[in-house]
């Protein structure tokens, strides 16, 4: 008997998927406040998972030339350049000077660390390593018509490439725009949370390669606790913008297996502000289709029995 929350609401996904020997749910906590944008995660992921290169593609917008999570990029480091006060501005809004600013000579310590938040310049960089969210309610998995996508014993979501027939349904179903079709191959690909390494008790390649522990891997419960502490610490240290994203089991996707600490609104990083799994509305959708089907049948019957000609 499926759980009442099988389509929506808080849930432990692995037992719900039928695992009798489910492992603790594993995931990522990506703390963007310590990300330095080195892209070691992108490289390590490509190396370990043998993800093909996508060629030299200079996007001309920032240091980000990956652009987005795609079939050939399972980690994506976003670079946001913001001409705005780094600290909650004491000065009046709009007084910040646009245009190039002297950021000071490079020193051993981050700008503003020694002199206090109020002397920081009005320019900041946000960096974030994005990844598949391994949702509690994964739309890609729900709508997959071949059973290629499946829920692992660790609660993660993985594509079986020997089953996928490239129908493409998972791709517009993902509320985060993560899973993607590989050109020339036809199948759908995304982060597996290094299922092969997990099975052997290892750490996913990206987390292993991350030099600042921006990407942390572990049991989800533990990560959520650690993340709450980190947010509290940042708030204490004068970074009130710090907030968690995807950590809440009561959100539209039942919480993410890979969640984030962000320093601005999610849409600034290219994340949806309030994603909802499409299958939440599935019972209502089928009901509407049923009503439309009945109307159609009734119209056909009426067309033949009514009237004289």
């Amino acid at each position: 008997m499926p759980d009442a929350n099988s389509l929506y609401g808080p849930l432990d996904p692995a037992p719900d998927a039928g695992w009798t020997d489910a492992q603790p749910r594993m995931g990522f906590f990506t703390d963007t406040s310590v990300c330095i944008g080195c892209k070691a995660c992108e490289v390590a992921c490509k190396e370990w998972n043998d993800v093909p290169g996508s060629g030299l593609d200079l996007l001309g917008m920032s240091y980000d030339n990956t652009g987005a999570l795609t079939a050939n990029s399972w980690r994506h480091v976003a670079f946001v350049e913001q001409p705005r006060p780094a600290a909650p501005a004491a000065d009046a809004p709009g007084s910040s000077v646009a245009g190039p600013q002297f950021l000071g000579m490079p020193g051993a310590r981050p700008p503003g660390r020694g002199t206090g938040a109020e002397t920081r310049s009005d320019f900041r960089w946000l960096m974030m390593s994005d990844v598949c969210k391994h949702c509690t309610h994964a739309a890609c998995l729900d709508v997959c018509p071949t059973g290629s996508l499946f829920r692992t014993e660790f609660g993660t979501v993985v594509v079986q490439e020997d089953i996928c027939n490239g129908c493409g349904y998972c791709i517009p179903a993902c509320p985060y725009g993560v899973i993607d079709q590989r050109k020339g191959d036809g199948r759908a690909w995304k982060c597996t949370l290094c299922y092969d390494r997990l099975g052997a008790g290892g750490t996913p390649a990206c987390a292993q390669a991350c030099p600042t522990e921006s990407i942390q891997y572990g049991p989800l419960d533990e990560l959520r606790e650690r993340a709450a502490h980190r947010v509290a610490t940042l708030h204490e240290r004068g970074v009130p913008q710090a907030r968690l994203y995807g950590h809440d089991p009561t959100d539209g996707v039942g919480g993410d297996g890979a969640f984030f600490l962000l320093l601005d609104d999610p849409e600034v990083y290219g994340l949806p502000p309030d994603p909802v799994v499409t299958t939440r509305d599935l019972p209502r959708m089928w009901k509407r289709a049923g009503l439309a089907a009945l109307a159609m049948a009734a119209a056909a019957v009426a067309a033949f029995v009514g009237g004289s000609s």
Partner: protein
Amino acid sequence: MSAPHRPVGDRFRRYRSGRGGGEQLTVPPAEFTSYYGRPILKPPVWKWDIAAYLFTGGLAAGSSLLAAGGQLTGRPALRRAGRVTSLAAVTASAYFLVNDLGRPARFHHMLRVAKPTSPMSVGTWILTVFGPAAGVAAVAEAAPWLPERGVLGVGRRLLPAAGRAAGLVAAATAPALATYTGVLLAGTAVPSWHEAYPELPTIFAGSALASGAGVGLLAAPCAQAGPARRMAVAGAALELWGAHRVETRLGLLSEPYRTGVPGRLLRAGRTLTAAGVLGALVGRRSRLLSGLSGAALLAASVATRFGIFHGGVASARDPKYTVVPQRARVDRRAAGS
């Protein structure tokens, strides 16, 4: 955090619009933030095959209902045209669906599972029942051409009964075939498809009825075409009502259905539907006018399907349609708590 700042990606967005997309916005540009104007969602990778399938699948459903009606009420012209069209349309559907796969040779992997949470899986099984039934019904129309003796003579005697049974099975499955595609599109994160979930099955049911009626008007003599005319009226009413709702009810998410190519397609669909219904009613005694009306209804169905398809794709390509409604939801919740 409320300090005003230029939205990230503003420069990129202006650069894009500077190339002159020719799009006329009917609502003022919404204020929103995005990552360099890049889409959040991945737009569907489905090629035009899927839009074409929406039409051929609906046509197969509508014409099999027409055929069953003709079969049960003694209108052989409607029965014959309906059955033959239904088989042709469902064959085209199978081609489009397999051709669109990234790995067409693996089409049979669809038959590994039956998943009620996957509208595509449900649709696969609906087609698996409908297709063979429509096939047998259409083949049965060839019975009179078979010789009266020998093995084929047995076929000549058995086929009509098999055709009658198969025709009824196809007709019983037809409403599901015509409407599940609404759930197929709505069961995605594509904003203008998902939020249109109450209307999409109705639009597609109406469009299927109208296209089936179009076949009847094209193929049947005026004396037998009465039911097709009434089917055209009912189908057009459902289609026009549904399309009007998605073009007006969804606020910002209605915009992709009113602007650009999808807007033009849906307007063309509306005009052709109105013309088709009018012609069907006025041209009751004219075979030519009836035929033209039938063709207009078929063309209307094509235009509507492509319009709905491309409207959704447009809503996935622009981060505005993802961010603005979700941000409004978050702000409403924050204001409420």
